[in-house]
Each structure stands twice: as structure tokens, then as C-alpha cells.
């Protein structure tokens, strides 16, 4: 994974320093700001690959920072940190454009995992191409490649794979897959989705790409671990 420049906006110096050191250890350049005003100035001047934003800031709060950031058309991924674990705040945060949120206190490996996932998602889609490990989907030419070799995908398999790639490392419910895949009022049964997924598995698993079944819910395209990339597995907090 390419290393990027990350901005941490957090008024607690100890926590900010800890997060910064962890992310530096993961190979990123890290800047730390103590207030929303400073953060907005910084994002106006520099390009960041990711912003980690605390909600409870002195002065303008994290929501306001996020709103102003998005209103100036910054597509930078934002991971919101909040001590207020009320759902209202979560929904509010995701509504105004946060890409993910974490409730304080959080386990550091989980933060690292989320940061990596956000960066992978941001980097996976460069232009018309989506990549995931050895898999590349060219969405314009509608061609798939696995390890450089053309991969033959039926229309529905392609559609299911696209949904899974868009939600990589997160669960895609069967319902959401059906909604994305079914066209023009056509009925698609959950069983049909199972068939497409099992065909995809047959084609992708030999290359180390795993699609996990979440019993009674849907599927999850797992993080690709075949390249020997060091991994900090999420732990329980």
C-alpha cells in the first residue's frame, strides 16, 4: 500500500501523539492539529490522503469542520472519532460525509485496520479501474484481469463482484446485492445470488481472494492477504 500524508485533528495531545506514532510506524507522514480552524487552513493548503477528525474539538466542532471540508469539494477520506456514542451523532457524522467513525476509546489495531481499509478503498479506484490484490476490474472496457490474465465473468457475476468490491472488507447484504444486480423490475431470489457467489469463489479463491459468507445476512470480500503485507488483525476492545 502506498503511504500517504495523514492529518490528525484532536485536541488531546497524548491521544494525538499516540495515534500519530502508530500511523508513522505504519509508514505514513502525519500532521497533528489541535483545532478545527487550524485543520481547515491546513487542508486548504496541503493535500492529505486521509483525515482523522475528533468531534469534540474546542471552537468549531468536528461536524462543522466536516461540513466545511465537504462544501469545498474535498473528497479526502475522513475517519471520525467521537466520545459521544449516541446514534444521532453517528448518523449525523455519516450524513455530513464521514467515511467511517470510531467511538473512543478504541483499540489501536482497529484504528490501524480502519485507516488501511479506508486508504485501500480510496486507492483501489483509480480512474475506471478497481483493484483488489491480483484482481483488476476495468469498468469502462468491462474486462476483468486476475494476475494479469483475462478473467471470464458472466454479466451477473460481474455485477455481484462490483458490489462486493465497492464494500470490500464490509458486509454486503444479500438484499443490497439483489437491489444492485436485478434490473428493470426483474425478480431475483437470494438463492440466485448464492449461485453467482459460488461461481465467483471458484474463479477467485485459487488466487487467494476470499468471499466470506455471513450466515443469514450476506457476503464480505475479505482483505487480500496474499501479498505478504504485514497485518494488524483487529482485536476486541
Amino acid at each position, binding site marked *: 500500500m502506498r503511504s500517504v500524508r495523514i492529518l490528525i485533528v484532536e485536541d488531546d495531545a497524548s491521544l494525538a501523539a499516540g495515534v500519530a506514532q502508530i500511523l508513522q510506524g505504519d509508514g505514513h507522514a502525519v500532521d497533528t492539529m489541535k483545532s478545527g480552524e487550524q485543520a481547515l487552513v491546513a487542508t486548504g493548503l496541503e493535500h492529505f490522503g486521509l483525515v482523522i477528525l475528533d468531534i469534540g474539538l474546542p471552537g468549531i466542532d468536528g461536524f462543522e469542520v466536516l461540513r466545511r471540508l465537504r462544501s469545498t469539494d474535498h473528497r479526502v477520506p475522513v475517519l471520525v472519532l467521537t466520545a459521544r456514542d449516541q446514534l*444521532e451523532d453517528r448518523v449525523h457524522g455519516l450524513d455530513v460525509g464521514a467515511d467511517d467513525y470510531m467511538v473512543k476509546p478504541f483499540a489501536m489495531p482497529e484504528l490501524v485496520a480502519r485507516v488501511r481499509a479506508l486508504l485501500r478503498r480510496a486507492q483501489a479506484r483509480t480512474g475506471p479501474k478497481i483493484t483488489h490484490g491480483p484482481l483488476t476490474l476495468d469498468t469502462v472496457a468491462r474486462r476483468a484481469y486476475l494476475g494479469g490474465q483475462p478473467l471470464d465473468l458472466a454479466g451477473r457475476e460481474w455485477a455481484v463482484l462490483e458490489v462486493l468490491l465497492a464494500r470490500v472488507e464490509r458486509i454486503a447484504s444479500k438484499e443490497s446485492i439483489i437491489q444492485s444486480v436485478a434490473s428493470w423490475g426483474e425478480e431475483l431470489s437470494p438463492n440466485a445470488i448464492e449461485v453467482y457467489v459460488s461461481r465467483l469463489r471458484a474463479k477467485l479463491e485459487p488466487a487467494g481472494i476470499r468471499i466470506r459468507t455471513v450466515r443469514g445476512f450476506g457476503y464480505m470480500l475479505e482483505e487480500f492477504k496474499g501479498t505478504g503485507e504485514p497485518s494488524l488483525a483487529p482485536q476486541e476492545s
Partner: protein
Amino acid sequence: MRAVSSLRVHLLRLLLPPVALLLGIGAVAAYFLSLEPASDAYDQALVDIGLALRERVRVSSGSYTFDLPGAAERALRTDQFDTIYYSVRAPDGAAIAGDPELPAIPAGRTAENGVLAYDGLYRQQRVRVMAMLLPCDGGSCTIYVAETTRKRTALARTIVLSSVVPALLTALLALSIVWFGVKRGLAPLEALSAEIRARSARDLRPIDVAHSPDEAKPLVQGLNQLLGQVTEANRNQQRFLTNAAHQLRTPLAGLQAHTELALTHPVPDAVRGQLEQVHGAAVRTARLASQLLALARVEPGRKPDASARVNLRRIAEESADEWVRRALAKDIDFGFELADAEITGEEFLLREAYGNLAHNALEYTSRGGHVTARTGIRNGRPILEIEDDGPGIPAAERERVLERFYRIPGSPGSGSGLGLAIVREIALAHGAELLFDAGADGRGCRATLAFLPLSQASP
């Protein structure tokens, strides 16, 4: 102030003596007012007999004789109810005819206007006697006419019945009007107290003054003022807790971050062990802080917004990523069986309850185990359920696990024992039941939150 146990009894106590006195006086007055004219009429009949008897007194050469044919005497003495006696005495006092033993005029009384009425005893019977002084041949004969008192007693009884009975009925009526009138008059108060009784301890909304009777308004306003103060105190507590949570969690997050950071560096094994201890303590303290906050949020005084509809299915769906991720880290299969289950409730609290049950299931299920989150309608009630195939909760412990800070002796994991107490509080706040039993095939634990159907939940 004297304690008044019952307004009704109090009112009756006040009313009963004057009502009884008035009715008593009325009854006595009616008795005498109607007895006297009737009695006078009977007396007059006796006087008439006396007058007829006088016609039978004859005087010849200074001696008085009385001549009454047998038939006439029988007619005279005949009465349907009573026996009539008479006695005729000459001016010199000699008995001429009749029953000479009739009681004489009581000492000290004289017949004014020639007539005197008095009561006496004759042949062991009460009698009414009319003594008359009547002119007979220059002198004055005394004629006594007496009558037993059967008629008069019957009359008196009739008068008593016709005056006292209605009076008693009137009294009863008056008292029952008071009894039921008080009940009726107090009906708005009853309704008010029923409304207050029906409230849960969490419902601190003010009582509607407009619907209270005028007399009860000061009481209701006083209550509302108190409710307002309690609500305000609760709000202050909420603000304090929210601030405390923020103040506590950020440094805890820092502590956690730094110990984790330190653990990524090569450190001597002895120090590593200590660092891991510090890290574990930081993680547990942080979770404990979150749980205390959640527990405080469901303390009485916070009533879930009854208008907020929550689909329990969404609660499970929205946090699916988080719990599946955690389960994967422990190599546990976390699955779902979700159907729609709408209730009214507070989403944050329900999410907290679900999270605590899910956390417990993951905590006590070993690697390779299964956890299933379930929502839907069972027996007409919306349910939220977590089932695992871990060691389960022994039946004897199922009550105790709901106590704060209680942990089953010897159980693994590092919980504080607050999780299920929080779930129970949240269940109470939503009028839901929290049930524990074994999972499928009698293995593991199945924790079920059974809510009220939507139709019953809305007030």
C-alpha cells in the same frame, strides 16, 4: 392539621347528628300534632254517650232513678274495638247505675266547663275516662264514660308509622345522597390519582392542569413543580455524565494508544508482561466507563420517546460489520436470522442492549463456536435475541447474572458484570422482558428481549 382518613366519613360525621336531631324533632311533633285532634274526636264520642245517658236519669220525689232498656245499653256499649263503661252518680254522690268502680276524678282536678278527660286503670286495662257534670233536676249529676284504649293505641301506632317511617326514609336518603354524592364529587380526583398511579417511575411529564378540577389545581401545580425539579436534576446529571464520559474516555484512549505503541517495540519480557497488564486494565476501564454511562442513561427519569419507531432488525443490520469483524478475530461464526420487528423505543439504548448481549456471547463462546442474532415476531411479541453455543448460564444463576457487578464464579473473560444489568434496565425502560434459556439442542445460552407489540406500547 388533624388527619382526615376519609372525606366521606368526615362529611357523614358532620351531617349525621343535625340530620338525626331534625328528623327526631319532626317525628315527635308530627306524632303529637296528629294524635291530639284524633284523640279529641274519640273523647267527643264519649261525651256524646254521656249526654245520651243523662236523658235516662229520672227524678221522682227526691230520689234518682236511671232507666236504660237492655237493648239500648247493649247498643251503647257496642264498639268494634273497645269496651265502653259508664257510671252515673246522683248529686249526693250515690251510684245510680253502671260500673261504680270506674276510676274517680284524680285528686286536685276539677271538671272545667263540666267536662274532664283523664286516663286511668279499670279491670287491669288502661281506660280513657270522660267525667261530665250535668244538670239533672236542679242538682248536678256526674256521669263517667270510660273506654279501653285499643283504638287509641292503634291510632297512635298508625300515626307513628306514617310520620316516623317517612322521616327515617328521608334520613336514609339524605345520607345516601351524601355518600354517593361525595363519591361522584370526588370522581375527578379519583381520575387524577389513577392517572398518577398508572405512570411509570420514568414518566416525568407534567400533569395536565386543564383537565384537573379547580379544587385540585393547586395540588397538581405543586406536583408539576416537583416533577419539573426532578426532571431538571436528571438533565443536570445527564450533562455531567456526558462531560465526564468525554473527559474520561479521551485520556483512556491515549493510555490505550501508548501502551499499544510501547508493545510494538522490542521490550524485555518482564516489562512486556507489565505493559500488557496496564493495557488490559486500560481497555477494561474504558469499557467500564462506557457501561456506567449507559447505565446512568437508563436510570429512572428517562422515559424512551414513545413516538420513536425502531425496527429491531435495523439495529442488528447496522452494526453487523462491527460484530462480524469482532467474531472473525475470535474465529467465531456470527450469523443472523432477521425479520422485521417494529417497536417504540430509544434507538441508542436498544443498540446498547444488543451490543451488551452480543459482547457477552462473543466473550463466552470459544473459537470455532457460533453466535446468532435474531429479530422478528414471536407469539405476537417483537423480539431481539442472541444465541450462542458457549457454556450457557446455569438455571440457578439466571437471576443473579442480572445484578450489577455480579459475575458467575470462575467464569472466563474480563467483564465487569455490568453488561446484563444494563440490558435489564433497558428492558425495564421499554416494558420488555429479558429471558434466558439454553440454546438449540440444550447447549449454550439464548438471551431474549421480548417487547410489547406496537398496539400495546403506545399510550
